[in-house]
Each structure stands twice: as structure tokens, then as C-alpha cells.
């Protein structure tokens, strides 16, 4: 019998809109989690997929020793696609020209991800292919064609073998962003390694195994591989790589994660408030039912069934709306990116449904228990069971639930803790502030009868309820401000990494006497260029007189070198400079004393090498430059942004190095299509200089940044909508509570304008204060989060100190005004009856 009654009550409550907010809150939590996690997963899959191009695979294993065949065999058994690569340097010979080239020999499966860009000849258009050269042929980079004076179809000698030059190699997917040897690249078939006889025992070679497959297969394989990895073997994924992309992906993922967490937090706040409100509104019916003989068990069953029904409906609705939303979003993103986004798996469905369920259960548990405890005597003593303040247990339980949900969603305890703690600070500050404010307002003694005095009086009278409202307004505003600011900062930081005027061509091997004519050429053709850096290469031979080989094995050094600095040649490129280059930061020590003009040669070292070489300030490094030993004293360590796409150096020596070693010069320029002809003339006039085109890399980085920025914008808009809904539901909930006051004031003859203005001012004050506190706390939390999680230099954002209170006051007061105006349209008798 109670089931029928329960369904009847449920359908009526639903139609009357009593369950709307609770339904909306759960649905909001579900749709936020679903759409965010589905979109995030789809974009991440796509980005990871696209970004895998950058290492031509999903994972790779590097070593300077040959791999056991078992590794490949096992990978195939795990369902992974594999390819093999070998790097080595070898002499190329043609037309009496001899040059040292960087050879990459690859099996037919290379590249597993991405494509190789080639040209049929120097003048033709570039296009993409999916595999490297056939056995017996080689592809050479453009620079080699000039140096060796060959054309497509000619033969070159590579080591001991003769190979037919069949294509111009423009770009491989895993080509380094910047390498001084980048202009003399040779792509060779793996089967031809033997023919070259270039690989002998003791040769400097680098082996790589490439793997591609789904995440599960890859992690299964890695689990098998990990215990047997040798110290010279290095397992890498895209994120391990120090590149702008790896960092950006990381940041994007962190942002999406934060956005998701905020979405959950917002929905949870809405749920906690609406569940309490709904249960409170059921106090009278429950007291009545108990009076009429309804047992506690029947009442419990009725309301648990209500909870189950509303939870089921809202989860289904949340999933449906979330699915539509993410489909629209994904379609839009896919159109923009000109690609198809891979479908998300079951995780978003399960996660969001589970979070909806937990939200529904945990936030309604205490209010429901209170509801079951409502005494029947309430029918006679009308305020029995009323609690103005939310109970400590409800607060504690809700907070614990929010924390667990955040942790569950993010899987990151540190991020969760930072966000949670900052939220607690907001709550504490606001609670104290609201108490102070309402107490101070009481002393103001405003003129009776004015809208302002009515507004202040209402605020004071409802101090507890207002404190809670203030907190939820501030939380919603804080989360929204936080994301808006963070999004702007992340994107502007990315754009700074690859500015529109970034150089797209590196010019290397410039002789000293060529510097001036090339400068003049650039100036004549209005080509923006960077400074001309003196460059020489050298090898670290000893530290404090002790031979380097004995301190750190060559193998280990090379391995770290290889894994840590993709874009840097194995023999470090050295320069001398008078001032610290842009984008570098001294981490220890001081820049050269007296500008490095004294007798001693000083050196500033990339901090990544500090540990590798076991260096400390004051050590003396012996560099072998052209077999000539040079002693330099370490005076500083520098942080280097290898992802900046600008010339970077492992070691910078003091300017007093000038004249001590032979150098070539190096510069970078921003070239446009119109400069092509001029550049060909330049290359013909100075055949020894080499140009490295990094346009494609820059475009690729820019396209990914644009894609991620768009994704972030989309996710942000979802969270903003959630935040707005929370604010609306809050105002709505509070207005329902204000109905009685409105009716009394109306009955006593208060003019509609007075009531509306009082509500407007009251909400304006609430929104303004909430916005101000939200802005202050957001800014402080941003400082921490930016530095800790995003590696962006933290700074304050004074504009949000104004934006917060103004937008808070405007938004909250306009919703409040609109809703109270709507209420005022009904006549007083109608309102009285509604109150029952």
C-alpha cells in the first residue's frame, strides 16, 4: 500500500517542482562529470594519438647497445606493433665531396605513428608517406643535396656501400625540434646497415625499439619489461620527453582535471543545499503522516523510494544530457581540428553514474535521517524540528563526501588537498566575515522603512542562513574566477612559448667572415633574425683534474644525455655570451664575475648536467675542444627551457674565451615564403652554411596548442554553466524561504517596489561580498596552484579583485530581483494559500 502512496507523492512532488533542484543537482553532477570526463578522454586520446607522432610511436625503448630479440618477440605477443631504429654517424661521399651525416636506419614499420614528409626532388612539393626508403636507396635531407652536389637519382657512398638517392627527406615525425646536426640527415633501410659496415664493435650507435598499441597492451608489456630493463635501457613515452608538447599536454590534462573537480564541487554544493531544503519542506507532511498513524518504517520506505527514483531519473537524465553535450562539443572540436575524435570508453559512464549515486546518498543521508526523526508533535508545535543552521554532522559528512569524490575523480591526492584546503579557507573566512558584517550592520541603525534598512534587517535576521548562502555563492564564484584566470594564464603562457614572430629557420656553420654579409642580406630583405652566437663543440674531459670517464661511465653519461635532452647534440654545443640568454634562469651561483672579462675562464652549466656530472659551484671543468684542453670554472647553474624553440646551450662560457678556439656562428631567422628565392641565392653564395627549417615543428606545436586551448575553453564553459546553475538554484532556494516574509510584508501593505528593491540590495550585498572574498582567495590559491601544478610563474591578478565583487553582485542580484519580481506578480491571497 505504501508503495502506491509513495509513487503518488513522488509524482506530485515532482510536478510541483519540489524535487526539481535536487534532480537538477544530481543531474548536474552526473552531466558535468560525464561530459568533462568523456570530452577529456576523447581529446586526450586524440592528442596523445596525434602527439605520439612526435616520437613516431606510443612508447620507445632506447639504448646504446643492441636489444635482445626476445624484447621484440614478446611485444608482438602482447599485441603491440613494433619498429626498429638505429642512429649512427657515417661519412657520405659524392662528387668529391665528403661530409659526416647523421644516419637513421629504420625497419619497414617505421613510423608507427605519424608520417614521413618527403619531396620527389628539391623543387617539387612535399608530401607524406607511411614508410621509409626501400633497401638499396637512401633519402637525404636538403642540406646534403647542396653539400654533396647531388640530385635525386644520383648515387652516394655511405660507409662501405653505394646507395641510390631516391627522395628528399623533409621531415620525420620524431625529428628533434632543434639539432645542429639536423641538416645532414640520412634515412636508410634497416636491412642496409650491414652494407654500410659503419657499425662496428665500439661504434657510437643508438638503438631504439618503437612500440604502438592501446594503453592496456602497452602497460602490460611494460609490466613484463620493467624488471629486466638494464641501466642503459630507457623506456620513454611522450610525457617523459622534455618538449613543449609534453609540458603543454601535462598542463592541459591538469586543467581539465581541475575543471572536472570544480564541476563536482559545484554540483555537490547544490546537492547538499537542495537535499536539506527538500527534506525540510517535508517536515510538515511527515509530522502529519506520523500523527495519522504512519509508522517510521512506512515513512522511511516512502522517502527512500523517493530518493531512489529521483536518483535514477537524474542519473539517466544527466547521462543523456551529458552525452548530447559531449557529442555536440566533440563534433564541434572535431570539425575545428579537421579530425575525428576517438570514442570514449565506459569509464565516463561508470564514473559519472557512480558519482551521481554517491552524491545522492551522502548529501541526503543526514537530512533524511533528520526527516525520519521529525516528531508528530510538530502538528501542534509548528517550529519543532526546525534547525536554522545545518548540523555539524551534515557539514562533516558533506565535506568528506566532496573530498572523496574529488579524489576519486582526480586520483591525485595533492591537487585534491590543495583545492579542498583552499575551499575550507573560503568557508572559514566567509563565516567569520558574515558574522562580523551582520553584527556591524545591526549597529548602523538605518532609517526605518527604506529598502536598504529592510535589506540589512533581513540579512541580520537570517544570519545563519545567509552565512551558508554567502559561502555557497562565494564557492561558485571562486571556482569560476579561478578557472577563467587559469585558462587565460595557461594559454598566454603557451602563446609566449611559440610567439607569432618566433624564428622558423636556424642558420648554422656560419664562418666569422660570413657573419657581416649575412646580416646585411637579412637587413636588405627585411628578415627578422636573432643574434649571431659563436658556437664550438667540445667534450667534457675532466672535472677538477679527474678524468671524467672515471667519475661517470661514458655509457651512463650518454644515456642521461640522450634521454634528458632530445634536442641537444651528444657533444655539447658551447658558446660564450656576455649576458644570460632570455628564458634561462640561474638556479645556483652567479653570472660571470666582471662580465667574464677576467683571466679565468668561467662556465655556466645547464642544471640538468649538475647531477649527471656531479658538479658543484667552484669546480673546474676541462673541456677538450679540437683536442685542446680548456679549463673553465663553474660559476653558475642554469635552468634551460628546451621547449622554447630558441637557441639553447648546455654550457655558456665567459666572453674571455673569444679567440681561444675556432668557432662558427649560429643564428635564427623568421623567413617567409617570399624569401625562398633570396635564401637559395644565399645558400649558393655561402655553400658551407646550413639551414634548418623548423617551420613544420612550430606549426605542429601551434596547432596542438590551439586544439588544447579550444578544449580548455569548451570545458570551462561547461563548468561556468554549472556554476551559474548553482547560483540560480541557491537564489531560488533562498527565495522560497523568503516567501513568508514577502507575504507578510505584502499583507502589511509594503509596496512591491520596496520589497523588490530590498531583495535586490540584499542579494547585491551578498553577491558583492561573496565575489570579493572569492576573488581574494582565488588569487592566493592561483599563486600556489600555478607554481605547484602548472609550473607557471605565479602572479597576482588585480583585475579579478574588481571582477569578482562586481560580477557576483550583478549576477546574484539580478537573479534574485527577477525571481522576487515574478513572485510579486501573484496576488497576496494566492501567495498566502501557497504557504498553506
Amino acid at each position, binding site marked *: *500500500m505504501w508503495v502506491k502512496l509513495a509513487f503518488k507523492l513522488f509524482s506530485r512532488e515532482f510536478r510541483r517542482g519540489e524535487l526539481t533542484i535536487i534532480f537538477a543537482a544530481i543531474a548536474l553532477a552526473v552531466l558535468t562529470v560525464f561530459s568533462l570526463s568523456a570530452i577529456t578522454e576523447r581529446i586526450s586520446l586524440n592528442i596523445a594519438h596525434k602527439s605520439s607522432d612526435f616520437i613516431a610511436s606510443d612508447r620507445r625503448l632506447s639504448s646504446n647497445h643492441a636489444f635482445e630479440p626476445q624484447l621484440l618477440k614478446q611485444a608482438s605477443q602482447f599485441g603491440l606493433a613494433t619498429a626498429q631504429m638505429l642512429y649512427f654517424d657515417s661519412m657520405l661521399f659524392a662528387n668529391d665531396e665528403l661530409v659526416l651525416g647523421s644516419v637513421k636506419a629504420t625497419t619497414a614499420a617505421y613510423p608507427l605513428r605519424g608520417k614521413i614528409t618527403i619531396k620527389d626532388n628539391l623543387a617539387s612539393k612535399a608530401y607524406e608517406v607511411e614508410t621509409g626508403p626501400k633497401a638499396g636507396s637512401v633519402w637525404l635531407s636538403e642540406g646534403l643535396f647542396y653539400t654533396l652536389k647531388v640530385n635525386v637519382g644520383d648515387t652516394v657512398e655511405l660507409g662501405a656501400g653505394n646507395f641510390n638517392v631516391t627522395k628528399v627527406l623533409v621531415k620525420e615525425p620524431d625529428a628533434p625540434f632543434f639539432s645542429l646536426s639536423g641538416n645532414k640527415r640520412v634515412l636508410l633501410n634497416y636491412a642496409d646497415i650491414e652494407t654500410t659496415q659503419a657499425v662496428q664493435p665500439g661504434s657510437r650507435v643508438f638503438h631504439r625499439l618503437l612500440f604502438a598499441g592501446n594503453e592496456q597492451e602497452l602497460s602490460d608489456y611494460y609490466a613484463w619489461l620493467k624488471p629486466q630493463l638494464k641501466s642503459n635501457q630507457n623506456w620513454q613515452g611522450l610525457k617523459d620527453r622534455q618538449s613543449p608538447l609534453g609540458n603543454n599536454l601535462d598542463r592541459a590534462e591538469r586543467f581539465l582535471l581541475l575543471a572536472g573537480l570544480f564541476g563536482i564541487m559545484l554540483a555537490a554544493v547544490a546537492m547538499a543545499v537542495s537535499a536539506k531544503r527538500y527534506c525540510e519542506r517535508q517536515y*510538515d507532511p511527515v509530522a502529519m*503522516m506520523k500523527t495519522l498513524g504512519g509508522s517510521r518504517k512506512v515513512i522511511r520506505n516512502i522517502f527512500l523510494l523517493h530518493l531512489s527514483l529521483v536518483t535514477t531519473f537524474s542519473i539517466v537524465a544527466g547521462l543523456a544530457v551529458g552525452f548530447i553535450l559531449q557529442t555536440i562539443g566533440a563534433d564541434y572540436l572535431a570539425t575545428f581540428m579537421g579530425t575525428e575524435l576517438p570514442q570514449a570508453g565506459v569509464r565516463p559512464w561508470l564514473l559519472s553514474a557512480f558519482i551521481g549515486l554517491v552524491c545522492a546518498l551522502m548529501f541526503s543521508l543526514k537530512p533524511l535521517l533528520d526527516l525520519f526523526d521529525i516528531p508528530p508533535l510538530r502538528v501542534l*508545535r509548528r517550529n519543532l524540528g526546525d534547525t536554522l543552521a545545518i548540523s555539524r554532522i551534515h557539514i562533516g559528512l558533506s565535506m568528506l563526501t566532496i573530498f572523496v569524490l574529488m579524489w576519486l575523480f582526480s586520483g591525485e591526492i595533492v591537487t585534491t588537498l590543495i583545492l579542498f584546503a583552499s575551499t575550507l579557507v573560503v568557508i572559514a573566512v566567509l563565516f567569520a566575515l558574515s558574522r562580523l558584517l551582520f553584527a556591524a550592520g545591526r549597529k548602523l541603525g538605518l532609517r526605518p522603512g527604506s529598502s536598504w534598512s529592510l535589506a540589512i534587517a533581513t540579512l541580520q535576521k537570517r544570519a545563519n542562513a545567509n552565512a551558508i548562502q554567502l559561502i555557497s555563492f562565494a564557492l561558485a564564484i571562486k571556482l569560476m574566477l579561478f578557472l577563467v584566470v587559469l585558462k587565460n594564464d595557461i594559454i598566454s603562457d603557451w602563446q609566449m612559448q611559440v610567439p607569432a614572430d618566433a624564428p622558423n629557420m636556424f642558420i648554422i656553420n656560419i664562418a666569422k667572415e660570413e657573419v657581416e654579409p649575412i646580416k646585411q642580406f637579412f637587413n636588405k630583405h627585411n628578415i627578422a633574425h636573432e643574434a649571431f652566437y659563436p658556437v664550438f663543440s667540445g667534450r667534457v674531459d675532466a672535472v677538477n683534474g679527474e678524468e671524467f670517464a672515471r667519475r661517470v661511465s661514458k655509457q651512463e653519461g650518454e644515456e642521461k644525455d640522450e634521454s634528458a635532452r632530445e634536442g641537444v647534440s651528444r657533444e655539447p654545443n658551447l658558446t660564450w655570451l656576455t649576458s644570460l640568454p632570455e628564458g634561462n634562469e640561474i638556479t645556483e651561483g652567479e653570472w660571470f664575475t666582471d662580465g667574464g672579462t677576467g683571466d679565468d675562464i668561467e662556465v655556466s652549466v645547464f642544471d640538468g648536467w649538475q647531477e649527471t656530472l656531479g658538479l658543484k659551484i667552484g669546480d673546474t671543468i676541462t673541456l677538450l675542444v679540437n683536442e685542446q684542453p680548456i679549463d673553465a670554472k663553474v660559476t653558475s647553474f642554469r635552468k634551460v627551457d628546451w621547449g622554447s624553440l630558441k637557441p639553447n646551450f648546455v654550457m655558456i662560457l665567459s666572453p674571455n674565451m673569444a679567440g681561444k678556439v675556432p668557432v662558427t656562428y649560429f643564428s635564427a631567422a623568421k623567413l617567409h615564403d617570399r624569401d625562398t628565392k633570396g635564401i637559395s641565392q644565399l645558400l649558393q653564395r655561402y655553400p658551407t652554411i646550413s639551414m634548418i627549417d623548423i617551420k613544420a615543428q612550430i606549426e605542429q606545436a601551434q596547432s596542438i596548442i590551439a586544439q588544447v586551448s579550444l578544449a580548455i575553453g569548451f570545458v570551462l564553459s561547461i563548468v561556468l554553466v554549472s556554476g551559474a546553475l548553482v547560483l540560480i538554484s541557491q537564489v531560488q532556494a533562498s527565495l522560497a524561504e523568503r516567501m513568508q516574509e514577502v507575504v507578510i510584508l505584502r499583507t502589511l501593505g509594503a509596496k512591491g517596489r520596496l520589497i523588490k528593491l530590498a531583495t535586490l540590495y540584499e542579494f547585491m550585498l551578498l553577491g558583492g561580498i561573496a565575489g570579493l572574498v572569492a576573488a581574494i582567495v582565488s588569487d592566493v590559491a592561483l599563486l600556489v596552484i600555478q607554481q605547484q601544478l602548472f609550473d607557471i610563474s605565479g602572479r597576482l591578478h588585480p583585475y579579478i579583485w574588481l571582477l569578482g565583487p562586481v560580477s557576483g553582485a550583478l549576477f546574484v542580484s539580478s537573479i534574485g530581483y527577477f525571481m522576487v519580481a515574478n513572485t510579486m506578480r501573484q496576488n497576496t491571497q494566492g501567495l498566502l494559500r501557497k504557504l498553506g
Partner: protein
Amino acid sequence: MSVLSQLNVIQVSGLTQRVNTLEGSLTILSDINFSVKSGESVAIVGASGSGKSTLLSLLAGLDVASQGEVHLDGDALSTLDEEARAQLRAEKIGFVFQSFMLVQSLTALENVMLPAELAGDHDAKAQAVELLDKVGLSHRLAHYPSQLSGGEQQRVAIARAFIGSPKILFADEPSANLDSKNGHLIETLLFDLNKQNGTTLVLVTHDEQLAKKCQRIIHIEGGQLEKISEGAAANVG
């Protein structure tokens, strides 16, 4: 239990109610003793704050007395827990309240059916339709409380009070929220239905005229039973 007490559907002995306040214990009712026979109509009168509503809450088992005992149709309320008291109310008691206390999300018909449904009665609808017809609201079955006037809402509440044919009907200021015309209408309806159903009526009011319509009047003053007088209906009953 004596034959006499079996005839008494309500037996109150030494009933005392104290509440704890910030200023210490406050006695609201002190040593109240009386009995009500089956089918009798009794009014409890007193000024505001005299303790009459508290007495009603103890008689109906809505609250538990600090001291003393209430026997309701033979059951000592102090021996029953909350669930058993609810069960007792479901089986034997009907209520009419000053503020109607209708469930806003249910129609007039559904509100009347509610006690019967809670008691698991399958014949609830037929009974409710008949009762609403008796209170003159057969044309308002599907109306929600907010669509009814105050008088109509109280008539729905009266119909609800009589569903399941309770032995005892407690009415708390049933006409206090209504104008005199509607008030009189409600009072007449209440007494007529009471007579037809042979229900025991316990009416709490501060209205002397309404109290006089009952057979006996219990006067409460300052939490104490001041006197018990006969009402105008004494001879009729």
C-alpha cells in the same frame, strides 16, 4: 481494570508535563485527572498558554508525559513506544487541526485517503469519496489544498478525520482560522458527523460558545485542572 474504567475511552491520572528551559524546569501541566466516556464530547478550554494544547498532545500520544498516565481505549500510553502509539493513532484516532495540516501535494480526495492508506486499508477511495460528499465537497475531489478556501480545506480535514471510523476525534481549535460563517459551518459539520459515527470528541478551544456545544467542559488554568463543568449538550447526549 474496572467496568467503569472500561467505559472510559480516555482515562487521565496524575498527568504532569515539565520541560527544561534555560531558567530551569518549567511545569506546563500539573496533576491532571479526568476521564472521558465513549461517545462523549468534551471541550478543553483555557486561555492562551494555559496548557490545553499540551494536554491534547499527551492525550493523543503525540508526546510523552513527564509523570502520570493516559489510558486510551484501555492502552496505557506510557508503555507504548513511538511506533506503537502511531499504530494506536492509525486505528483509533482522528485529528482536526487549526491550521488544517493538509499535504499540499495531494488532492482533496488523496488527503482524505491518506490515513486509510497509511493503515493499509484497500477501501480508502470509496470511503473518502463518501466522506467528501458528506462535507459537501464532492465537486472538489481533484482540487489541491492551495485551490481551496480555508473553510473548504477544513472540511477536507474533517472528512480525513473520520475516515477509518476512529473511536476518538481530537480537534484543536478547528474554527479558529475561519470567519464566523465558515466557523459555524465547520462546527456544525463536526458535531453532526461525530453524532452519526458515535465518536468520542475531544475539542480544544478558547471559544466558550463552541465549548458549550459539548457535553462536558474541562477548564485548564495555569497548567492545572480548574474545574469540569457541563456543557449545553449534556442533556442532549
